[in-house]
């Protein structure tokens, strides 16, 4: 009896929920708040959600509010696909989607281009940068996929170029050894081939890749192998959560390797959790400045942060700021679409090609100038490399550690990766 009543109530709520949509722009938002990449998925998703709520408060898209539906899919691709199906047709069709993971984004490229829904992912896989499918490495056409920031492949190329110079500067003799470390999963695998190819070109000796899972665990065995192989430079392809375990294990075992992280692989929280094991890790940062920086764009970011943190005391890691940029680019493309035929998928896509070296309003010197064209979705090929410096005990909170200088993210280089046509989509 009770079950029937409950089921009936659910049915009524669902039907009535569908009926209440007036003039709004529906936006889908997939986030990982509980799965394998939630350590970085939570701040990025928070940034996107806060930014969209802030933009709604400022009047939305030309006076029309965005109706954002945030869904936690736990980093399981089938759940993302299933959620996408409800967003892709009928009354619930969305104008655009803020996505997340590599596995589901790469799986959906065909679907989103068929359904004409622009997809802004948290995945920076190189395979998503080829809108027409003309790349020489067999990349699928992905005209509706966008992401803010350098692709994983370009970021890795930048770090390899830096590493080649670093080796010479350190006075190293012979061929330096490079190894790719990561889980056997689309996200860490995305830049593997591109990285190993460039490493060979630059004169590195490429060692067989080392696997470790996306979850935290005991990676002593992998670190022993790493130490024995004598690698000089190791790329960590996973998110911060499992990278921390590797860094700590390798520190214990005494493996002295220069670690190169990906954009999701190191941040202030990870530096605190890993302690001195994170000292010296080199990683790319997508934004021109980080939280606490004194730039005009940071003021806007602080305003946005108040949406979910009224007291203004939370420390926002680099991923939060990147999420804000991703949301702002989408909204400005929608603004353009309103003036050029209405907010539909194809128009939003054209809106992404409106400007060169584009920085969203209010976010100067936070978001890096980005350019999308309908032949090349590599927004930026200029990569800012930072080095994490951690001293002493990291028991205090992240704010205090950054203030006292125990954790410092120091910029070491800006590398301009050549925008080669054969690297499109790879």
């Amino acid at each position, binding site marked *: 009896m009770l079950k029937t009543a409950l089921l009936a109530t659910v049915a009524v709520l669902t039907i009535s929920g569908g009926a209440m949509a007036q003039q709004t722009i529906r936006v889908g938002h997939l986030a990982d708040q509980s799965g394998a990449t939630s350590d970085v998925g939570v701040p990025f998703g928070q940034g996107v959600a806060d930014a969209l709520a802030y933009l709604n408060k400022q009047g939305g898209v030309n006076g029309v509010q965005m109706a954002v539906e945030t869904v936690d899919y736990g980093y399981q691709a089938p759940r993302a696909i299933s959620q996408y199906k409800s967003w892709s047709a009928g009354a619930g069709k969305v104008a655009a989607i803020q996505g997340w993971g590599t596995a589901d984004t790469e799986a959906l490229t065909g679907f989103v281009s068929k359904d004409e829904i622009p997809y802004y992912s948290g995945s920076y896989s190189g395979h998503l940068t080829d809108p027409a499918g003309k790349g020489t490495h067999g990349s699928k056409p992905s005209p509706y996929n966008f992401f803010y920031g350098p692709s994983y492949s370009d970021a890795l190329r930048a770090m390899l170029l830096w590493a080649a110079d670093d080796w010479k500067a350190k006075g190293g003799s012979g061929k330096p050894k490079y190894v790719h470390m990561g889980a056997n999963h689309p996200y860490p695998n995305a830049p593997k081939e591109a990285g190993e190819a460039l490493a060979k070109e630059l004169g590195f000796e490429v060692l067989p890749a*080392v696997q470790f899972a996306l979850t935290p*665990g005991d990676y002593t*065995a992998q670190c022993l192998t790493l130490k024995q192989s004598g690698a000089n430079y190791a790329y960590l392809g996973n998110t911060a959560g499992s990278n921390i375990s590797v860094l700590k294990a390798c520190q214990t075992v005494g493996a002295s390797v220069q670690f190169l992280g990906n954009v999701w692989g190191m941040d202030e929280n990870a530096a605190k959790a890993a302690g001195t094991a994170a000292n010296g890790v080199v990683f790319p940062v997508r934004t021109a400045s980080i939280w606490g920086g004194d730039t005009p764009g940071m003021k806007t970011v602080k305003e946005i942060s108040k949406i979910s943190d009224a007291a203004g005391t939370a420390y926002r890691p680099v991923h939060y700021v990147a999420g804000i940029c991703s949301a702002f680019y989408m909204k400005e493309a929608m603004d353009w679409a309103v003036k050029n035929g209405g907010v539909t998928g194809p128009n939003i896509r054209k809106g992404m090609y409106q400007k060169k070296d584009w920085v969203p309003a209010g976010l100067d010197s936070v978001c890096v100038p980005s350019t999308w064209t309908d032949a090349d979705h590599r927004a930026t090929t200029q990569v800012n490399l930072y080095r994490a410096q951690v001293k002493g005990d990291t028991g205090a909170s992240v704010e205090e550690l950054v203030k006292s200088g125990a954790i410092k993210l120091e910029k070491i280089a800006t590398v301009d990766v050549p925008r080669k046509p054969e690297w499109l989509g790879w």
Partner: protein
Amino acid sequence: MDTGLLLQLLINGLIVGALYGVVAMSFVLIYKASRIVNFAQGEFLLIGAWTCWWLLTSWQLPFWIGFPITLVFMLIFGIVLQIVVLRPMIGEPIISVIMVTIGLSIVFQALMKWMFGVFAKPFPPIFASPTMNVFGLDVQTVYVVSLVISLLIMAGFGWFFKYSRMGLAMRATAFDQQVAQSLGISVRQMFAMSWAISAMVSAVAGVVVGVVNGVSSALSFFGIKVFPAVILGGLDSIVGAVLGGLIVGLLENVAHYVDSQWLNWGNMYEIAPFYVLIVILMIKPYGLFGTKDIERV
């Protein structure tokens, strides 16, 4: 043949294997005493580790106070769990009992993620120097301490079951419940005690792993690794469980060595114990040291 790396991996395997052995011992203890297969063993480690972490960080207790409090908590937890959830399942078919413990493991995993979040949290530093040098391999101090503790626990178990009244009573209950009851042993108390001891010992293992790698939901996977260990060692032999744990630890690292030198598949570390488990079950359906069930019509 890189013998240096192999030797280091073997030492690593022994140390981790000792932990597997401790967990397997707790599992076999419950099985021997109450014939229940505890699929939630990994979650005992998890709960013990999180409790200790919480006491140390939120309440700022020093380790030598927080750790005994954790043990007391796990003792009570084990007893309560047995009374509330498992007493009603006495006499039910084995599939139901297995499902109840599986259900418990799901509930506890999700509950821990809810209460403490999904990120791995490091323990505050406990030992003055985090690493020690053992035969040329830099090992975490806590691992060496855990090896010592594991040996102490095994010796304690051995003494307990051979010489103490309570231990003898437990063995009697495991052997034949009816006769034990007729001799005045309270079977319910024995069940509760076995769960309590198992929970406490697993908590020790959980705290050790937590100190090394940080506490996270990866600790539950120890509960899955325990199955190859008890299959290798036999379900009703505590000594076998210890041996099984050590073998699994060594096996993992040897498989990783083979993988990294020649195969380059990348994940033999995780999957090799399961292949070996299947092979053992094909050849010896009751495990290496288990007693064969002789069926009488």
